[in-house]
């Protein structure tokens, strides 16, 4: 094709002058978004073969243009422009990127397709759609951007990332994290490194070209046993061919302050209880300290990115250096130094393409004692921060014998008393070879060899409770190693078989991946421990996909994968995961030609995927564990000198020989529509998903195994949902553009079966809470959402105040027992949505993203645990502060299981708002921006934050509100 095109160009250039009455037009084509020149733009006179393309500087010269000719400017990924020639000598064009570009290439795992040929639920989020701000965790780039993908906001802790849930996840006890594939290398679902708060931080957000989210099983089945929770394919930036040297520098400086704190009694409110006869006023201080205000400060962050890229005819490279530091409001610190490189080499007339991506990352975490958050809520607010002598005020200074009393939270934050750090050094590298066979250009061979290697090293120091004179220092050092090696290859044959008017695309391949994890810990103190754990597991896979595009109308695609996992015994080792999907491009039917639609496609799919991420590696094998430290020995007699003889113990572990894959079957039905030349596009996906043989940690029949709870295949859950996404260009004027994206996901989960015996009444308590040991507030129960709360129904007095200990006698037996606890509300939302707007006016741009959820509930454990008088008076040797909810309830003791504490937590959060200005300058691109994140939350929930993954609010590191100033320079 390229040669044909070149020949054509030659003709055009050689033939010219002979014809008269024709003019020449010149100009520059730029990218409207950043005013950078666009090389390689096709410039063509409509209806002819006369044309040219722009050079490296975006300049073009087009000869032989007649008045009235229509000149078409087209470039992949941009909206084509048509301009009528009216004798201008210069014609500069600014091209706008096309968000709804249907020809866009979309990765689908071991291959690619185009958006219009995709049959599965596949969503691509490109760099231009990413959230703005000083983002250190890659997943935050796409929060709120894609239907069916729920990315929770991270806590305020430095370097935290938030979780990704695609269609809510499919498991109960096994992981619900999606499989993440970075440039062809599937990352360990356990994170890939130890000691990190968010292992995905190893990827510099600035380095990411796009995310592709595979949601339904007909798309994910190609990743078989790891695909039940969806797959996220991350492609990093590579530079492009024939690209002039480009130097970019970006800086983002941010301040971070907590957006909200716990509602505890003020010093005056606390003092107001001094009349109570139980109140020991002798300990009362005369200060008024807001401990939370004392512990939370302003965190400062900075992210630098320096990128160099250049493309030649046969090779191109991109090198990025990144330094990021992020401070939490507790002065915890996250730092990343990363060096990201990519090289692309083309050879053999472009038949061979070699891509090497290598990232070197050092993630450092300097943790602080987050226990200070809880202690700040409990420490007597009438005490000063420091004693007159300058030392930290402790309970031991004013209360006798209170070794269990809270420590001064500022003392705890002092790194001399508690510190912990972890440094992770990691290499993520993938080598890709893509070869077209010379005898059959339609046949390709693709090979990926990847490694993700991380070493971590850290230490921890804990001085113990300062109120306890006997406390000992507990020092700890740890180190670890994670190694993930992957080798896969596949053959791909893609050809337009004209005889049957069908494009055939067939892929078949093999993959082997091994994970090795080593963890060493050496802990001192009262129960010394030195131990090395080694875990290795491996996956071997065969996969194939066949896709047919018949007459550019009907699409059929089939996927099959076989996975062998070392985690299962011989008979259950191999799992088989098929998927089938079909599509009908209704738009291309002849009878649609004059319709109002510019796109209309119906898609449907079915697939089976698996789950094997269960934690234990040898769950099918009986193993023996010796005592891990000398504190777990027992005495067998005395030695001749009369000293006790201690011997270690050896424990056989419980196991399930028949452990096998968890299987998820998913159905997807979808409609894609486009109007006004795809200025307005929308998709609706409906899915139904059923997970069987859930890998769950469930009770086993007593006596039948060497444990009480076992990882085994039990039960099933179903989920169903509707995802709706609409993209529209609202304004498209010369100086003003406005496009918007709205997506909403309605979802519904249900546990359908839980037990080995299929007993519909069998339930499993979950959701551990504080306030007593072993108390749980949620329940897994057939017929209910897995995050359902399990509570007593509170009785209220005529004034609407809860009556302590008075609950509805649901079963009418005249006593309140466990039997009266009811399943009530749930933490999972009924729906969640994202709403993004991008506006451009001249050189200004404004982006903002709202995110929210409806129908989710949160249990306020802070209030239930300490919103009572017991938490003030009845403490072992001291008095402590209470949650301010005590002013509402007046509860004497904990009423942990009252539904009073389960509160609606619908919310709308302005996640992100960013205003940018591109400074008009010659040769240099300069953009400055101001971004605010988590600016406000609209909610009725009166706790700390309505968005808590598990639905239990308990000493959560509060989210921050960040203000970010950004500068981007491009040369």
């Amino acid at each position, binding site marked *: 094709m390229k040669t044909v095109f070149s020949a054509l160009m030659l003709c055009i250039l050689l033939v010219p002058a002979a014809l008269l009455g024709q003019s020449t037009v010149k100009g520059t084509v730029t990218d409207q978004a950043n005013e950078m020149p666009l090389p390689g733009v096709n410039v063509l006179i409509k209806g002819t073969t006369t044309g040219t393309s722009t050079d490296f500087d975006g300049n073009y010269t087009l000869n032989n243009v007649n008045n009235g000719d229509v000149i078409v400017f087209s470039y992949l990924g941009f909206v084509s422009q048509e301009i009528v020639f009216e004798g201008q000598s210069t014609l500069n064009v600014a091209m706008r990127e096309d968000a709804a570009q249907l020809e866009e290439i979309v990765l689908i795992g071991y291959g690619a397709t185009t958006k219009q040929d995709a049959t599965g639920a596949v969503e691509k989020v490109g760099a231009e759609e990413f959230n703005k701000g000083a983002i250190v965790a890659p997943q935050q780039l796409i929060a709120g951007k894609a239907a069916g993908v729920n990315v929770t906001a991270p806590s305020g802790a430095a370097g935290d990332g938030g979780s990704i849930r695609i269609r809510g996840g499919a498991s109960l006890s096994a992981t619900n994290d999606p499989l993440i594939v970075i440039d062809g290398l599937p990352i360990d679902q356990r994170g890939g490194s130890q000691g990190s708060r968010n292992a995905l931080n190893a990827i510099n957000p600035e380095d990411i070209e796009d995310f592709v989210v595979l949601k339904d099983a007909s798309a994910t089945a190609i990743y078989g046993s790891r695909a039940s929770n969806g797959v996220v394919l991350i492609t990093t930036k590579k530079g492009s061919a024939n690209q002039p040297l480009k130097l970019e520098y970006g800086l983002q400086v941010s301040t971070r302050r907590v957006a909200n704190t716990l509602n505890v009694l003020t010093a005056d409110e606390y003092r107001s209880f001094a009349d109570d006869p139980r109140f020991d006023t002798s300990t009362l201080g005369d200060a008024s300290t807001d401990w939370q205000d004392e512990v939370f400060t302003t965190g400062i962050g900075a992210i630098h990115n320096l990128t160099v890229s250049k493309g030649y005819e046969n090779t191109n490279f991109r090198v990025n250096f990144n330094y990021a530091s992020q401070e939490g409001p507790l002065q915890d610190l996250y730092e990343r130094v990363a060096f990201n490189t990519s090289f692309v080499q083309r050879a053999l007339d472009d038949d061979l393409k070699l891509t090497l991506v290598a990232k070197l990352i050092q993630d450092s975490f300097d943790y602080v004692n987050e226990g200070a958050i809880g202690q700040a809520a409990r420490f007597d607010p009438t005490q000063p921060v420091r004693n007159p002598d300058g030392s930290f005020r402790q309970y031991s200074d004013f209360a006798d014998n209170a070794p269990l009393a809270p420590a001064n939270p500022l003392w705890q934050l002092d790194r001399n008393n508690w510190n912990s750090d972890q440094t992770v050094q990691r290499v993520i590298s993938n080598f890709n070879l893509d070869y077209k066979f010379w005898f059959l250009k339609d046949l390709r061979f693709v090979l990926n060899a990847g490694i993700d290697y991380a070493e971590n090293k850290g230490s921890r120091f804990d001085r113990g409770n300062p109120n306890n004179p006997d406390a000992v220092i507990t020092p700890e050092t740890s180190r670890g190693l994670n190694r993930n090696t992957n080798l896969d290859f596949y053959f791909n044959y893609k050809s337009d078989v004209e005889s049957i008017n069908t494009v055939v695309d067939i892929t078949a391949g093999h993959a082997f991946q091994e994970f090795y994890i080593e963890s060493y810990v050496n802990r001192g103190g009262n129960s010394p421990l030195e131990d090395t754990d080694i875990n290795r597991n491996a996956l071997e896979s065969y996969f194939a996909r066949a896709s047919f595009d018949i007459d550019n109308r009907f699409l059929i695609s089939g996927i099959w994968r076989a996975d062998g996992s070392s985690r299962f015994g011989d008979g259950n080792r191999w799992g088989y995961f098929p998927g089938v999907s079909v599509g009908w491009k209704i738009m291309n039917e002849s009878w649609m030609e004059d319709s109002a639609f510019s796109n209309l496609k119906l898609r449907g799919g079915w697939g089976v995927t698996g789950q094997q991420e269960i934690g234990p590696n040898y769950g099918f094998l009986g193993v023996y564990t010796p005592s891990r430290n000398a504190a777990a020995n027992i005495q067998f007699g005395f030695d001749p000198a009369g000293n006790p003889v201690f011997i270690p113990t050896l424990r056989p572990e419980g196991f399930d020989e028949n452990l096998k894959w968890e299987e998820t079957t998913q159905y997807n039905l979808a409609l894609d529509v486009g109007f006004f030349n795809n200025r307005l596009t929308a998709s609706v996906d409906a899915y139904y998903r059923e997970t069987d043989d859930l890998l769950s940690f469930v009770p086993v029949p007593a*006596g039948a195994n060497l444990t009480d709870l076992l990882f085994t295949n039990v039960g099933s859950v179903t989920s169903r949902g509707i995802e709706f996404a609409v993209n529209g260009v609202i304004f498209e004027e010369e100086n003003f553009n406005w496009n918007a994206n709205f997506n909403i996901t309605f979802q519904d989960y249900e546990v359908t079966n839980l037990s080995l015996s299929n007993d519909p009444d069998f339930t499993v308590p979950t959701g551990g809470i504080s306030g007593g040991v072993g108390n749980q507030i949620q329940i897994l129960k057939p017929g209910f959402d897995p995050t359902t709360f399990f509570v007593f129904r509170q009785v209220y007095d005529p004034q609407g105040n809860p009556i302590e200990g008075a609950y509805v006698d649901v079963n009418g037996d005249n006593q309140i027992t466990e039997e009266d606890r009811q399943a009530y509300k749930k933490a999972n939302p009924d729906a969640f949505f994202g709403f993004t707007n991008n506006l451009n006016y001249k050189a200004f741009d404004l982006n903002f993203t709202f995110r929210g959820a409806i129908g989710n509930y949160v249990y306020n454990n802070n209030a239930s645990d300490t919103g009572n008088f017991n938490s003030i008076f009845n403490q072992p040797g001291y008095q402590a502060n209470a949650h301010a909810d005590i002013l509402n309830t007046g509860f004497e003791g904990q009423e942990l299981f009252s539904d009073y504490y389960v509160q609606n937590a619908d919310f709308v959060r302005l996640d992100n708002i960013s205003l940018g200005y591109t400074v008009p300058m010659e040769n240099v691109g300069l953009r400055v921006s101001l971004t605010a994140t988590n600016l406000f939350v609209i909610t009725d929930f009166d706790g700390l934050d309505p968005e808590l993954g598990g639905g239990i609010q308990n000493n959560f590191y509060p989210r921050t509100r960040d203000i970010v100033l950004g500068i981007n320079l491009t040369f």
Partner: protein
Amino acid sequence: MMKRILMMCLAASVGFAVLQSCEDRLDLTPEDERLTADSAFDDPDSYEQFLAKIYAGISLSGQEGPAGQPDLAGLDEGFSNYLRLYWKMQELTTDEAIIGWNDGTIQDLHGQVWTSGNEFIRTMYSRLLYQVALTNEFLRQTTDAKLSERGVEPELRDEIQVFRAEARFMRALTYWHAMDLFANPPFVTEDDPIGAFLPPQIARADLFEWIEGEALGVEGKPGFIEDMAPAGAHVYGRADQGAAWMLMAKLYLNAEVYTGTMTQSSFTPGPARYADALTYVNNVINAGYSVNTNIPYSHSFLADNDSNGAQSEVIFTIPFDGLRTQAFGGMTFLTHAPVGGSMNNVATSFFGINGGWFGVRTTPTFVDKFPGDVDNGNSPDGRALIWVDGQEKDINTVGTFTDGYGIFKYRNVDVNGNQGSDTTGDHTDIDFPMFRLADAYLMYAEIAARGAGADAGTAANYINILRQRAYGDTSGNISASDIDLDFIIDERARELYWEGHRRTDLIRFNQFSENSVWQWKGGVQPGNATQVFRNIMPIPETDLSLNTNLEQNPGY
């Protein structure tokens, strides 16, 4: 072109190599200190270490001290310890102890209002059956066939025969606990496989017979007693024939309960076996154990109770060590949980710990069993280790620690007041006396009181040994005519309180559910009698729904 063919060959060979090398790489086994069953027994010490795990089943909660790698996952690790749970079942359900914590349904134990969903009862049940499964696995791994297969040396094989006898004793002990608490538990032996099968339920009377057969032998299978070490001469911390005789004596003493018939509203006792009980009580009494009346009663429960002289009466002990045998259950719990209020002011100096847990106290019903001015800490009976300072006698609020007198029986200091080996005061050195001679003396006296063969005069002598130790002189001595059943049940409380006997004793005397009240029994402050079916714990709901072979006990 050549280059391309080379490339192809290279790719093909890489692909081939990969396929070849992968297959075996899916067969992975542990590479750290964990071992497969095959490799575990390469080390001759492993047999003793496995036996140690069975003993540790009572004292420890997992493979990492004090917590970590728990044996059971269904409850907080510290709460899931065997001794701690057994103690709660036997003591919190009675007049001897009440706990103020609000951990789940823990207060239902004292109230006798538990349901089959109670997680403490459930975890006790799990722990008992776990211990049985552990022992079964030991017996499976030490059969003659297995030992021959592994080429175990003859000396070690002889030693392993004793190990096996002890393992069978430990299993019988646990099945006795299971029979006592749950009456009709699931029943598994070394003849069953490991895995997700449904164990059958055994009737209480059948389990009684099985334990008896295990100890004494049934046709073709010798009993474990004969293979055990002689009484009183064995390695400290391990069970010998003395422990086994004590188990048999308890089995027979409670035979009417264990072989009787329970319905929701009534209980019909089975045949009495006091004569058999007497045989084994006499075996124990004559085995050389002794109560040293010169050593105060309180010394039996101190950090150095393995060496301060009090150990001479101990028949079977569960050793703990502040540094080497750490767990949040066991003696750590028994020492910390009762300390609070003004006791906490002397937590280190008097109790040898770093602070109380403000949990367990006792009821006025128990306090009143002691003579003298107990309210002011003056009882002539030295066994009244009752803390009154800052405490109210009556329990108006269960959650308020200072309601109800405290008990300072277990203290982590030696006879000179020095703290135990763990200087942080977390874990204690006190060894738990599971069986001691005083118990055997009282059992003898009880058999006498029941007119079942024992001599009343001898019984009085035995009791007076205990009372001389308690009073420090003969002022508390009794005569044979003082011994009746009411005296025995109260004297057992005075001598053996907080040692895990009370529930079983009260049931034998028919005073556990019906016929008795104490504060907060029945869930009300003054106390209410409860129905007789509460003498048996419910089979946990979770296991009932899993194991369709099981039938719930009456009343639940």
